[in-house]
């Protein structure tokens, strides 16, 4: 590792070996709900699944609902290509995630929590069950009426979309619902529900332990704290890294690239491809969301070197989307099929190069009319690849 020049500050918070669940719960119970919510809001923590909704606000909105029955759900349906950090968090520090869930439950007034775990991660279940037993003992000791269960997914990427996840838990096809209403009002079983990503809940442990101020010291304006990144592709050091938000893609490539980096896919197949010429101008964070200047991410960072064909990359993504589209709304179901067929036809010379412009228009339509984030975000990778590597799409 000494040969790799290190620019970026490695953070060690999430995976730090700490076992203070009881203390954290006790401290949270000793404070008023309003105080704990303020701490979460002040931390600036935003959802680490990729969408970036402020976590404190989510808890606050759900706490304001009058319903007696409410739920806390940990979204562990990690399926975005290039993302594997939630698996690592659930393997190494599941108690931090559970502590976050329990504190959230106390604040919003929930007695029941679920971890929706993707089917591909079923091998984690024995250890998670062991951790759950230990955690439930702690809850009993503190006299807290809250229980967490594991609900297994069965291999459907779309179930990571929160409303599709509720449908799936309710025993139905994982088809996303219309929004609004949002889960904070109508979620699982039509009850107010906080649904947070695994990493978000683990960060809440850090915030409750060290305070909002310490968390805010990391990152930049609007993108506070650290983030766990899943690094893969053409890199000598693939793996899981906790880094500060706000870094430029150039800094990232200097640390993780193989010296021949052509492009970086930020945020998985549903994210953006950043070509070399934009490395210095693009930062990783939430500010300026979707403008292409500062990119939000669930943590997937896939590195491509100059040996890679961007046509093959896009073909692989579209093949993924076409299969994983739930098929419920036409723009996404037919759109994904047509995009895949379209780029193949252009590559084979059956359609003129200008057909790519029609396909770009189609992605604009999908962005506007698809029912959920899946169909809306296909445009991200499609346009960023086709616009920057048009030649590779044609020849």
């Amino acid at each position, binding site marked *: 590792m000494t040969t790799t020049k290190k620019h970026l500050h490695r953070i060690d918070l999430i995976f730090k070996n700490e076992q203070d669940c009881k203390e954290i719960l006790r401290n949270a119970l000793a404070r008023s709900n309003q105080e704990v919510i303020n701490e979460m809001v002040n931390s600036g923590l935003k959802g680490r699944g990729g969408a970036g909704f402020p976590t404190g606000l989510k808890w606050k909105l759900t706490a304001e609902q009058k319903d007696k029955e409410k739920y806390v759900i940990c979204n562990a349906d990690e*399926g975005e*290509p290039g993302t594997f950090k939630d698996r690592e968090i659930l393997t190494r520090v599941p108690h931090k995630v559970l502590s976050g869930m329990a504190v959230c439950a106390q604040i919003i007034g929930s007695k029941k929590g679920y971890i929706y775990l993707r089917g591909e991660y079923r091998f984690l279940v024995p250890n998670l069950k062991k951790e759950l037993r230990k955690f439930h003992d702690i809850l009993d000791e503190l006299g807290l009426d809250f229980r967490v269960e594991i609900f297994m997914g069965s*291999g459907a990427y779309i179930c990571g979309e929160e409303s599709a996840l509720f449908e799936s838990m309710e025993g139905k096809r994982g088809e996303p619902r219309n929004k609004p209403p949002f889960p904070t009002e109508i979620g699982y079983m039509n009850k107010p529900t906080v649904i947070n990503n695994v990493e978000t809940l683990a960060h809440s442990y850090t915030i409750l332990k060290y305070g909002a101020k310490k968390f805010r010291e990391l990152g930049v304006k609007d993108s506070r704290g650290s983030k766990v990144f899943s690094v893969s592709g053409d890199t000598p050091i693939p793996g899981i890294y906790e880094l500060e938000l706000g870094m430029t893609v150039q800094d990232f490539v200097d640390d993780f690239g193989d010296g021949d980096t052509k492009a970086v896919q930020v945020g998985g197949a549903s994210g953006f491809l950043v070509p070399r010429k934009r490395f210095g101008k693009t930062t990783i964070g939430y500010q300026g969301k979707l403008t292409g200047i500062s990119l939000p991410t669930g943590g997937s960072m896939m590195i491509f070197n100059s040996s890679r064909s961007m046509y093959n990359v896009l073909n692989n993504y579209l093949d993924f989307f076409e*299969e994983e589209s739930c098929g419920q709304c036409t723009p996404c179901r037919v759109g994904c099929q047509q995009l895949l067929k379209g780029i193949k036809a252009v590559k084979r010379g059956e359609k003129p190069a200008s057909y790519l412009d029609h396909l770009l228009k189609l992605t604009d339509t999908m962005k506007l009319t698809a029912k959920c984030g899946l169909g809306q975000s296909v445009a991200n990778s499609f346009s960023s690849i086709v616009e920057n590597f048009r030649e590779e799409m044609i020849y």
Partner: protein
Amino acid sequence: MDFQEKLVHDLVAKHGTDRESLLPILQGVIDQERYLSEEAILKIAKEMSIPAADVYGTATFYSFLDTDLRGKYVIRVCKTITCAMKGKNQIIQAIENFLKIKVGETTVDKKFTILQTNCLGWCHKAPAMLVNDDVYTELTEESVVDILREYREEN
């Protein structure tokens, strides 16, 4: 009561007849039989008092709830971008040569089925595959054959 009837009956007794129990029940049948036969779907529908079309419609949404015959060991090779870049085609080829079947097929002795699947979440250790619930990573054409040989020679 045959084995399947008892299996479905026990699963419904354990999880209940509410619609929320459907996925755990379907998963329970898959655990034992590796796929959901038409008979199994009809039995679940009857025990839970919901239309068979709803059971079938739900099952076919999920890639792990197979409705076609599957072998005792379902091999799922990841085909998403990083695994594709790191040689998943050669891995598939090695598996096909070893088992003498193609992707999507099941061996005559019903021991193995080969499938491709979307991102398994092991991109940093690509290429990766699942054999039922067990994960194998950083596969090579040699290692994948060694792994499958062990499965073939067990019991």
